[in-house]
């Protein structure tokens, strides 16, 4: 029980002994061994080494999360590694296959455009109304550069989304790590006053892109607004319109992924542009895990608000004991709270009821999926770097 005079710090309150932490990490260790067993049996030494390093990395991070009861900084290490290594592996593969990061029209016509999860919300209405997938890729394995099809990606996305909701944006997205890494560089934000109306932009982008995709029969976001084209693959510009498209991609990447995170210490692309993130927010309603503010413990100090990378906490939401639906469950507010007022929570239970147990349950689900999905991407990026080095 919290008395007014002395407040337990969360790390003091919940730090675990090493043997107990090892015991709690065992399931993730076994899962990692299972997930990377394919890498271990690869003939190429770089794949083996990358698999071992990645498996160890994921297990150590989980152990540290269990041992210290901090979530954010350990998750961030994984997430930044994912964000930085995804382009390494992807661009290398693209260059080997095509000799260029630009995707030519012939590849699109052949249905070999690699698919990521960002256009998923834009595919739903055309599929429902016309039974047509408005993306120049393949549904089944065999299409796409990596050999995986849209069905595999959509399946992974759906499985993760049902369980962790918008936690996808903190444990699986292979784009957000770049800006999270950059946002962590400065000690203090230079730009602190941000108009909260900017939070509406992702919803507007989602609405506009869904409608334009339906009208134009193309994934409009990929064609016009995706900043991450700058670090994955872009339109092979063969006319001025292609140049305009690429100009938009590069400008958005430079502004929202590089410059603004440095100035604001926020994930500005995620918070103020990404339509997939807005779409993903809807699934926070279906996920059983959320973050709550225990109003009895909270003495509004705004530390959680300052720490939140997506402005998902407001004075009003804190007063109501909740985060906004855009919460990515990254754990920043929980780790920042000196009074243990921000807590992990399982829907249908009391807010103050065993938040550490709720945290562990969430982390098992999120980390198992992060290891499977993000871990394989990290391993691929590492293998590429080792391939260059060895």
């Amino acid at each position, binding site marked *: 029980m919290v008395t007014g005079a002395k407040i337990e710090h969360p790390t003091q309150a919940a730090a675990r002994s090493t043997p107990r932490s090892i015991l709690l990490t065992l399931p993730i260790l076994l899962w990692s061994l299972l997930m990377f067993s394919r890498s271990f049996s690869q003939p190429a030494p770089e794949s083996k080494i990358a698999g071992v390093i990645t498996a160890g990395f994921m297990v150590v991070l989980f152990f540290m999360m269990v041992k210290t009861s901090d979530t954010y900084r350990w998750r961030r290490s994984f997430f930044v590694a994912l964000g930085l290594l995804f382009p390494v592996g992807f661009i290398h593969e693209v260059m080997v296959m095509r000799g260029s990061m630009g995707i030519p029209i012939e590849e699109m016509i052949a249905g070999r455009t690699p698919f990521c999860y960002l256009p998923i919300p834009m595919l739903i209405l055309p599929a429902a109304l016309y039974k047509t997938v408005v993306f120049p890729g393949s549904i089944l394995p065999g299409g796409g550069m990596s050999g995986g099809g849209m069905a595999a990606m959509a399946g992974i996305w759906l499985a993760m989304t049902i369980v962790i909701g918008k936690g996808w944006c903190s444990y699986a997205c292979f784009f957000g790590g770049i800006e999270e890494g950059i946002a962590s560089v400065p000690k203090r934000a230079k730009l602190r006053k941000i108009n909260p109306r900017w939070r*509406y932009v992702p919803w*507007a*982008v989602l609405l506009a892109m869904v409608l334009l995709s339906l009208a134009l029969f193309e994934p409009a976001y990929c064609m016009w607004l995706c900043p991450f084209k700058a670090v994955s693959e872009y339109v092979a510009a063969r006319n*001025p319109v292609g140049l305009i*498209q690429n100009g938009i991609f590069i400008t958005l990447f430079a502004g929202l992924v590089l410059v603004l995170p440095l100035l604001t210490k926020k994930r500005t692309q995620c918070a103020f542009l990404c339509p997939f993130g807005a779409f993903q927010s809807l699934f926070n309603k279906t996920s059983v895990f959320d973050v709550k503010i225990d109003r009895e413990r909270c003495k509004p100090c705004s530390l959680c608000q300052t720490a939140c990378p997506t402005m998902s906490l407001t004075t009003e939401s804190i007063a109501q004991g909740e985060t906004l639906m855009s919460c990515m469950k990254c754990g920043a507010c929980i780790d920042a709270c000196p009074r243990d007022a921000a807590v992990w929570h399982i829907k249908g239970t009391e807010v103050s009821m065993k938040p550490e147990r709720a945290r562990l349950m969430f982390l098992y689900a999120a980390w198992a999926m992060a290891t499977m999905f993000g871990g394989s991407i990290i391993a691929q990026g590492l293998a590429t770097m080792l391939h260059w080095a060895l």
Partner: protein
Amino acid sequence: MVNSSAMAGSLLLGEAFALGLASGPACVASCGPVLIPSLLAERAGLRLNARFLVTFLGTRLLGYLVFAFMVGEVGAMTSLPQSFRELAFGVVHLLLAIVLVWYAYSGSRSCVAGCGKALVRIGGAAKREIPGAMMLGFLTGVSLCPPFVAAGVRAAELGSVAAALFFFAAFFVGSSLWFVPFLGFGCIRRNEAVLTVARMAMVLIALYYGLLGVTILAGRKVYGYWG
């Protein structure tokens, strides 16, 4: 005995209606980027939304009929010189972009004055303002969408202005049935978030149409992979 010309007329109207009905989803898809955000940018209420839809669809019909007149009088739009078509579509898209931005701006302004009583109006002086839905409906009516082309080609074969007008009217009724569910938007509660998102979406869509208009006028294909 049934008059053969009356029967032919009925068949023609039936054909136009069926074409409109079958093309409805494509019509909704084409008008969606304009209709849905502008409908959301209005205040809530079934009556107000019904008034918006009637205004939008009515002026869309007017746009259709203007187009039908051109089809009947000048000949099939598709046989017009390409440069004229590109000029017309480029200008229509630019106008659409301007009206969308204007509408988004007027929506935020009119809310201060007296929300919930009238449709969002655009224009200069107060007396000259017209509902934004009128302009948007008309511009979506005259801009070519795929089902519209299908109806236009068929209407052009009829050979008379009157027949083309009737054909388009029946086509309009058939396709408009698909817009009835949009009345449900009147039940969506409007708060600052919904109104702001709708207006922002209108500006984004306007940017797209603006770019489309400029590239058409500049003679470039906007679906930009071919030179």
